């Protein structure tokens, strides 16, 4: 059954073993049914592959009467699509692993946050399902801002966005997948009884300002499309479908509603009809969204007309933006500016045991380290969560048991 699921999902068994930290030969033996999968492995495997552990535990009973469509979760159908590569599917495996670990960690620390459920419910129940999709997105964003801390104040929320998502129980992951054409995607992770929305932004060639929009766009999908398995947004593929228009309108209104634009322009002394590279860069730096989204929002708010937007889109603000915002710097430039402490912290988030090394979300790493410092998990458990060895964990975060030897 495991092999059938892997085939149907387009996952290579050996690559999957590497990501899960299992001996490839042993994993192949599990996949072929030569060896029984230990019961303790079933929850992780089920969560990663998005199947019920019982399907993996009782393969012979089920395999005879099940077709590929019966066993392949929607998620994997989406990730088998045209243009998608092994790297995409491998990234999904890693992200789903993080989702499973986060659930496990929250159970151990008794700090489970499911605030997202009530927020999503409020939004879904309030939005008029018969309204035009663009209006649905905007209305959803307004309710979303009102019912969360993001609506407090009229400033850009990019710097608090990731912490907010984490606090509400949403998993936000930004990793570079250079081979991929996926710009962002959203799907649910965790077991059927404990799902959690996950929003992903491919950080390869996407600025921090762009990623803020991607994350919020994917959040829009997570709210409105919980039953589609996954929603994918590809680089340079404009989203004309209704769901894409709705998600983009949600992202724009959630990040740069009229009051944020107004406040930014007033505090910076910008005149909408006299924008240049410098003032545009200042507005981007202040609102925390990329140029295109800023201009679209300004047009929707009535500050700019179509011709002005077309002209302003052609202005290259990169050089000016780098002068006014650290977020516009490359990683190397940013680290040079912030010093060694920041460099060390970034190193502390990097996995070493996965076949594909990734940088884990800050909130996730913090949660693991905090649980370790509170003696809620052992360092070897913390190391497993961070996909590094125990000695690397102790080196990175210190040994609180240094004086103990039992």
């Amino acid at each position: 059954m495991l092999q059938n699921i892997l085939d149907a999902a387009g996952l290579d068994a050996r690559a999957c073993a590497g990501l899960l930290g299992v001996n490839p030969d042993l994993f192949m033996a599990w996949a072929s049914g030569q060896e029984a999968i230990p019961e303790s492995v079933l929850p992780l495997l089920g969560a990663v592959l998005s199947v019920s552990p019982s399907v993996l535990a009782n393969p012979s009973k089920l395999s005879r009467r099940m077709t590929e469509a019966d066993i392949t979760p929607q998620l994997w159908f989406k990730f088998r699509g045209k243009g998608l590569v092994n790297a995409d599917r491998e990234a999904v495996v890693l992200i789903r692993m993080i989702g499973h670990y986060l659930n496990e960690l929250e159970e151990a620390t008794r700090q489970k946050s499911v605030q997202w459920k009530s927020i999503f419910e409020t939004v879904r129940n309030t939005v008029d399902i018969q309204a035009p999709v663009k209006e649905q997105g905007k209305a959803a964003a307004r309710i979303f801002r009102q019912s969360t801390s993001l609506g407090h104040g009229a400033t850009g929320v990019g710097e608090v966005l990731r912490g907010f998502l984490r606090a509400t129980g949403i998993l936000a992951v930004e990793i570079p997948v250079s081979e991929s054409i996926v710009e962002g995607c959203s799907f649910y992770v965790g077991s059927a009884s404990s799902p959690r929305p996950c929003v992903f932004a491919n950080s390869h060639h996407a600025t921090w300002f762009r990623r803020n929009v991607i994350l919020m766009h994917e959040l829009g999908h997570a709210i409105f499309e919980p039953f589609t398995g996954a929603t994918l947004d590809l680089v340079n593929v404009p989203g004309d479908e209704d769901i894409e228009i709705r998600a983009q309108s949600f992202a724009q209104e959630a990040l740069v509603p009229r009051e944020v634009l107004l406040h930014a322009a007033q505090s910076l002394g910008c005149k909408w009809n006299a924008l240049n590279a410098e003032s545009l860069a200042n507005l981007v730096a202040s609102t925390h969204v990329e140029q295109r989204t800023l201009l679209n929002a300004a047009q929707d708010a009535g500050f700019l007309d179509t011709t002005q937007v077309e002209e302003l889109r052609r202005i290259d603000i990169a050089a000016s933006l780098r002068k006014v915002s650290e977020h516009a710097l490359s990683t190397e430039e940013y680290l040079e500016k912030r010093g060694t402490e920041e460099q060390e912290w970034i190193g502390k988030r990097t996995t070493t045991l996965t076949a594909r090394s990734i940088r884990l979300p800050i909130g996730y790493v913090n949660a693991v380290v905090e649980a370790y410092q509170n003696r809620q998990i052992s360092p070897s458990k913390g190391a497993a969560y961070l996909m590094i060895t125990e000695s690397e964990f102790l080196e990175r975060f210190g040994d609180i048991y240094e004086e103990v030897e039992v």
Partner: protein
Amino acid sequence: MPNPSLIICDSDVLVQFFLSNELRPLRDLKTFYGIQPAVVQEVDAELRWLGHYAARFVPQLDKSLKNGLLIRLDKPQFQSLLSKALPGASWAGFQTLGAQYLGLVDKGEAYTHAAGVVLGLPVASDDYRAIQVLQFQMQNLPCPVLRSFDVFGFAHEAGLLPIEDCEKVRSCLLKEGRWVPAALKHTSFANGIANFPLRLRDSTKAPTSGTQAPTMFSDALYITRI
């Protein structure tokens, strides 16, 4: 007090034996004391792909399983031990406890300690940090939890492992950056072992006042040659 039928070993302890290529103490426990070293399925899987060691220990593990030096505690094997286990012990109970411990410590330790608690058998684990966490979270621990150097020290004390070979083990593990007790870190095995209170001892070394069954993870276990 009869000898336990098994000692359930965690990955970190077996790595000490595999790295130093010194398996005689485990073999002698089985031959002379009738105590079978065993691993839970999770430790078996862990040893087949262990951190930066990757598949390094697979040949030694496979050989040990094949020649019976180690046995794997799979479901049938586990259930065969239930008749001598504590009342209420079951495979399902073991899985539940293992899953509970898994929220706190890594997979190998979680299921090794769970098996020891459910079956009422000693375990071998060098991860004292995991023990601290389980204690702090008020979880039960097996009695006793032996460390790799309890087994090496015992083998030496029982006349089964010459002191030169014990020293080779110590030097090798130090060189590999592995855990060596503080008492043996900066001095030879011969000089340091007296300062390392052994948790595994031959019954001939028992105090004249007699011995009791271990009730704490750090109590000594006295075993008798068969």
